[in-house]
């Protein structure tokens, strides 16, 4: 069986100048990182931007020599992505409103229009049903679910990140899975 090259080896070779190793590293983890971001921001366009920002930040850290080899790569990237997503929401709240003649916030109108288009797209897609269910979960449960399942953070890491005990993190995951199961059952969703 062909041995997969480790993240540590890919990073080392990239820092030494092998650009191809960066591409391999990104391709290995891109889906998990992107899905984590998408689940947090729930907007594909924003997720694409944040995905780029995340890895550009990763590159800068590698090139500055500040990357800590002791931690796992994917959880580290996911933490960066999550922080950027939080920053994005903070900035969005601070953006000044521009109103149209009738007093409506024109960006809100645009946002609603875009959101309706996005919602329509979501409704048309059978595969989006599970994503809708995830979005129905309380934020605390959704966060643990997304960070564990897509972000590959351990429950211990999630507990530290969200400032709770590991039992609380596990409890939120337990509730998240249970609530998912209930919603699926209530909606009699066929997932075949």
């Amino acid at each position: 069986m062909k041995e997969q090259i480790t993240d540590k080896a890919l990073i080392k070779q990239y820092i030494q100048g092998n650009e191809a190793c960066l591409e391999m590293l990104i391709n290995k983890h891109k889906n998990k990182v992107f899905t984590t971001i998408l689940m947090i921001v729930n907007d594909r366009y924003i997720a694409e931007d944040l995905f780029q920002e995340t890895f550009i930040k990763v590159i800068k850290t590698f090139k500055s020599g500040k990357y800590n080899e002791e931690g796992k790569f994917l959880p580290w990237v996911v933490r960066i992505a999550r922080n950027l997503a939080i920053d994005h929401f903070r900035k969005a709240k601070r953006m000044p409103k521009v109103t149209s003649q009738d007093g409506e916030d024109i960006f809100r109108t645009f946002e609603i229009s875009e959101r309706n288009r996005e919602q329509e797209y979501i409704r048309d897609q059978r595969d989006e049903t599970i994503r809708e269910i995830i979005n129905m979960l309380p934020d605390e449960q959704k966060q643990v679910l997304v960070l564990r399942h897509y972000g590959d953070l351990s429950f211990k890491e999630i507990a530290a990140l969200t400032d709770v005990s590991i039992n609380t993190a596990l409890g939120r995951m337990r509730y998240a899975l249970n609530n998912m199961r209930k919603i699926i059952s209530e909606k009699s969703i066929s997932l075949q």
Partner: protein
Amino acid sequence: MDNTSTLNKLIQLSYSELPESQHEELASQVSDSYELSETFAVIEELKTLLDGEMEAPNPTSVKIILEESQRSSALEMH
């Protein structure tokens, strides 16, 4: 082990987060108990559904990242 604690352990088992000895012990209990194996199967099924939601970024995003890396590497050389 109470029900809550059991469920927590099953979740940790499913995500391979238990120490090896606990992992083996619980895996053995799961295979010996109809109730535990049913509960574990539900967890695994939900995880499979979650896996189905995995999405890929647009290839353009990856291209932009790689171009930025090459650009910054070129700048370092000068």
